[in-house]
């Protein structure tokens, strides 16, 4: 019994310790956004009074509204088109089953194994040939080709009641209307989970936008933060304001849709 109690205490100590380690960087981020860079570099972990000054300095260096507009525009357009294209494909592969389409699906699944590191150079030359370099379209287009989300939709469509489609066909509803007006509303939770996965990935994307976008007025928040912090003497107080601002949207999505978030994640192992 005594040993049992001991392991229980050990467990709480371990969990508390790990929780503090996990949360500390968030605290650090908030604290640092209110301190001067000199204080940050000396490891000051209490709140300061520099927040407003840091915000002003940041907005002097970069056009924050424009950067956020760019980031949101790319994230939202990527998400909408990925959900549309991937859910159509998941629906098509599962509802209209055929041997040939399953072969194509098999090829698609194989491409999931291709690491992005291997695609970045040929994609770059492709975009150069198409004269799309330094445009938001070039950032969005390859994101839409997400086989993982197609796979996710197909898996979830397996649970979709086929009788609904039959009933709609008897009523003479056109096939694409069945997809829009019957399938989409029923699959709301799947769309929500996929939305979170794609939106997070797109908002947090770094390498591909870094390669494609060159003009300062097209850049996303991650690119701006990265270039600010790669200075020889990075102005951390100012940068921290930017990281807080970049983290708020993803935190908001997470807290608003926590249930679907976890469901989406564990759904991906099925």
């Amino acid at each position: 019994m005594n040993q049992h109690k001991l392991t229980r205490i050990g467990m709480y100590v371990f969990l508390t310790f790990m929780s503090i380690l996990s949360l500390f960087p968030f605290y650090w981020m908030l604290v640092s956004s209110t301190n001067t860079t000199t204080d940050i570099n000396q490891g000051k972990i209490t709140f300061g009074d520099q927040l407003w000054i840091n915000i002003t300095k940041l907005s002097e260096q970069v056009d924050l509204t424009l950067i956020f507009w760019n980031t949101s525009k790319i994230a939202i357009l990527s998400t909408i088109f990925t959900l549309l294209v991937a859910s159509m494909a998941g629906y098509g592969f599962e509802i209209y089953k055929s041997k040939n389409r399953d072969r194509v699906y098999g090829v698609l699944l194989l491409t999931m194994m291709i690491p992005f590191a291997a695609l970045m150079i040929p994609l770059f030359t492709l975009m150069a040939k198409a004269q799309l370099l330094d445009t938001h379209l070039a950032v969005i287009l390859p994101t839409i080709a997400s086989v993982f989300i197609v796979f996710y939709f197909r898996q979830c469509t397996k649970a979709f009641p086929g009788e609904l489609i039959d009933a709609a066909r008897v009523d003479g509803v056109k096939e694409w209307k069945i997809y829009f007006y019957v399938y989409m509303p029923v699959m709301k939770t799947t769309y929500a989970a996929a939305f979170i996965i794609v939106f997070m990935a797109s908002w947090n994307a770094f390498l591909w936008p870094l390669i494609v976008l060159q003009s300062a007025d097209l850049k996303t928040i991650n690119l701006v933060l990265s270039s600010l912090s790669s200075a020889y003497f990075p102005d951390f107080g100012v940068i921290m304001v930017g990281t807080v601002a970049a983290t708020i949207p993803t935190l908001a999505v997470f807290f608003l849709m926590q249930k679907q978030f976890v469901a989406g994640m564990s759904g991906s192992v099925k």
Partner: protein
Amino acid sequence: MNTSNKLLNPRSSKKSFHRFYDINGWGFVLPAVALVAVFMIYPIISSLWMSLHSGRGIIVEFVGFGNVIRLFNDPVFIKALSNTFIFLLVQVPIMIFLSLMLSSCLNSPNLKYRSLFRLAIFLPCVTSLVAYSILFKSMFSFEGAANSFLMWIGLITDPIPWLSDPFWAKVTIIIAITWRWMGYNMIFFLSAMQNIDKSIYEAARIEGVSSIKQFFFITVPLLKPVILFTTVMSTIGTLQLFDEVMNITGGGPANETLTLSMYIYNLSFKFVPNFGYAATVSYVIVFFAAILALLQFRIAKDK
């Protein structure tokens, strides 16, 4: 469903329904298939073609396997490859072990504040890779929070050169990645643990098996498939490590944290571009990722 629909629509013959069904099927999958063909299949094939060429900028010549031979004589490539392997061989096991420990703690019965602990440990994986890299860069600066804390508790007397020493720079990267992905993997383990029969633990407790033994002899063996899955996924992820290294150390000091992805980036966009050679390096990642994927496929089949 095919036959039932044919019956529902008596006017259409079997053949025309078949065509109607097929056209709709292709129609729905076409956008996705076309996009994947253009943005994944075509690039990966064209990159194979590129890897047979070499040259700077637009002047390229056919070199066949010349690039492959160059790989073996390129000290920077060897450095990047060995760094990448050090990262994944050290980081993945540590992270998987910690995630397993955490999830088995969180899964134990009558735990108080369960959802609070779970939320705290999961929260890091909501941050963007760039944002958290910057946080770690500032915390691990020479006089930063990490050193101040370690000196305050008396674990060290002199500050550790986290970012400027070859060894400690690697440690910093490993700590950072573990922080970001620990909670992510934990969720997979937690959802798998929900499927384990509680009576097994009940029986073990009655037999007087300690919690630590329960962890190693019941939880770990039963979770083997999920552990292998997450290990392979994490390994493929670490194989492509870029954002963290780029933003925390910039590959330095003296290429000591340079990874394959970062080397590819440097070859193509930082130095005078040599896309052919960069494509060859990228095929090294494809090669290892393919081996891992194959391994995963075998495991899935065994299941």
